[in-house]
């Protein structure tokens, strides 16, 4: 037996401490997700900011140059931008608020016990699962002034004598596309709120009933507070989606007549793909991002975010 081999030798000292190694290992596990997020979220944002600082009209490659904040100054003086921003707020506020109220009522209805509930719950999802472009085409047909069913029904019941061009008159166009968008978005709220309603334990209602709470009191003091996290998330998500959602408008009116239904996101698309002005389109998209970030921050602050009810 070799004696020397049995003498215990001190282990060589590790280059990094155990705690550091563990921290590094943990960060390594996060690396794939960080790379994916960076590549798909962060890089496009940084690229858009970079593009917004250049005069970048695709059809004029020889004019490509750095112009600093030139595109932002142009935006400030662009009356169409301000019009589209105003239209965007009208579009979002009207669409989401009415979708929420009707979706809430729908959820309460679908939460009740009745025969055929499963069928109605499935039917309720129909507007949401139809692609936006198809919804746009269907509603464009419904609103068609010369042979569309909406005018036809209104004429048959005597409410109209001359057809109304719903999508061609500035006074009606925005309301008409908002109506179509409301129809499409109700199922989103009803299904989200329905899920929230079903997650509220019956014991809470029973305890409230034992304590003498009326139906209205139970609604305001049990249902609403317990639904708050879902309502906050659903409305915030829907507001952001609607702000950026240009499919319906593109299909139904292309932003017309006379920009009456042009929202900032559809204006951004038009700038990019009709004028091929990617520099200015990037500027508009950066501003949209800033508006949405500010909105989300304020919204979560005012609604106290998605903290638990007891918190």
């Amino acid at each position, binding site marked *: 037996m070799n004696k020397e081999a049995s003498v215990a030798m001190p282990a060589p000292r590790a280059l990094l401490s155990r705690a550091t190694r563990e921290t590094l290992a943990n960060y390594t596990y996060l690396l794939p997700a960080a790379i994916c997020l960076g590549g798909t979220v962060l890089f496009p944002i940084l690229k858009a900011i970079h593009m917004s600082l250049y005069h970048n009209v*695709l*059809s*004029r*490659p*020889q004019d490509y140059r750095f112009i600093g904040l030139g595109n932002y100054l142009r935006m400030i003086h662009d009356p*169409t931008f301000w019009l589209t921003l105003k239209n965007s707020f009208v579009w979002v506020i009207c669409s989401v608020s009415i979708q929420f109220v009707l979706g809430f009522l729908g959820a309460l209805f679908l939460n009740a016990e009745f025969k055929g509930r499963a069928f109605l719950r499935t039917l309720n999802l129909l507007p949401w699962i139809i692609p936006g472009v198809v919804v746009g085409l269907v509603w464009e047909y419904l609103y*068609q*002034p*010369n*042979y569309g069913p909406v005018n036809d029904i209104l004429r048959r019941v005597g409410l109209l004598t*001359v*057809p*109304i*061009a719903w*999508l*061609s*008159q*500035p006074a009606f166009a925005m309301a008409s596309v908002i109506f179509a968008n409301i129809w499409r978005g109700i199922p989103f709220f009803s299904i989200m709120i329905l899920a929230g309603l079903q997650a509220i334990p019956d014991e809470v209602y029973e305890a409230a009933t034992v304590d003498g709470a009326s139906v209205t009191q139970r609604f305001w003091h049990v249902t609403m507070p317990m639904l708050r996290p879902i309502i906050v998330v659903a409305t915030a998500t829907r507001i952001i989606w609607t702000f950026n959602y240009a499919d319906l408008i593109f299909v139904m*009116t*292309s*932003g*017309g*007549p*006379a*920009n009456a239904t*042009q929202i900032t996101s559809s204006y951004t698309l*038009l*700038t990019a*793909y*009709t*004028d*091929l002005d990617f520099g200015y389109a990037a500027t508009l998209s950066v501003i949209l991002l800033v508006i949405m970030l500010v909105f989300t921050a304020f919204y979560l602050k005012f609604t106290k975010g998605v903290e638990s009810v007891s918190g």
Partner: protein
Amino acid sequence: MDDRSRFSRRQFLQTVAASGAVAASGLAGREVPFLSPTKASAASTVRFQFSVPEPLRISLVEGLVDRFNKSQSDVEVKVEFVPQAQARQQLITAITAGNPPDCCQMWDNWLGEFDGMGALEDLTSQIKGWKFYAGTAPTAWQTVSLKGKIVSFPLALTNDAIFIRTDRVKEYGLKMPTFDWTTDDFLTLAKGFTKPEKNQYGFGLRGGGTWAVLYATEFMYGSGAQVLKDGKVVINSPEAVSAFEWYINLILKAKVTPPSAPTDAYRQIVEGFGRGVTNMYLHNSGSIEEQKKFVGEPNFATVPIPVGPAKKRASFFFSETLTMFKGGKNKEGAWKFLTWMMDDEQHFKYCTTLGLLPTRQNLAEKPPYTEPSYAGFVKSIPFSIVSPYLAYPSWGGKLDSEGVPMFQQAFVGQITPKQCLDKFAEMLTKNMA
């Protein structure tokens, strides 16, 4: 088991990786789908982009390309169909990325923009030696010439004329217009045709898309207006404003247009007439074949645009072109295909199937161009001019993104005709580059 014949996991993985690399290197140079049938290993491929505004064109072009491919042993055309709405954008991004098709079909109002990008092949010397050069109408060459160089073949010509429901002229006891009718005659006829209680209107005015601006401008030319004079934009001249006011009043005062006119685009004006909602509309000959199916050949005719107060009138010529790109990889094959497409038989078939005008006189004298449905277009040729909006490449996109909303504001009465044309002239002047 003999170790020498055993396939270790490491060896297996190495073999798989090596075969993958070999296969990938073999595929790397291919520009066609791996599983598509190849004609012959010697045939060189020509990429041809074709933009599609209507499904009829797909079968027509597929048939022509198939015939070409069967007739050739050394060239094979691969056609890439792109919806019309995305065609211009797709070409620009392909050029920017350095991968344009070898050739494509496009409208002449895009040429300036692509030439500005330095993307178009100068075909002047080749075309001047082409067998049909002299027989092609000079106007057709004008639509595809930029700064003295010819950049495309004019595949088909279009100009505009008024479609009229002849059966309703009789039904309502109206007077069928002559070829030299006036704007007053036009208004009288439009009023006679308008029966709101029957959901029928006199004129399917186009308020949507670029042609909303072009059609209005054609009526303005009847008052002696012009877009450009001595290098300056003069589309806000008093004559233009007066004619535009008359045009807008078709919607606002005379109410001879359907309520949807301020946003009606190509599809709506063609279908509106086809469904019997409107009794006149202004369009190119491209919708003749469609109207033959919609309302029937004996029930409509075409007449030239009416003469305006200045005893003038204009119809704008446009052409569909066949164009080659500098960045194309098979120019020889592309030239072979394009000249084949421009041969009498193919050229005539293309134009007659789509209802467009051929660019050579000998073909324009044959039926169907002698039929009444084409009369308005043929009679308009003497006063047809190349669209003034082709003068500057930047105007192309701006007409759509800024011009159309301005005109729509005027159509719905939000701004006066003068305010509209002043803003429009300012926009054109700003984009004279």
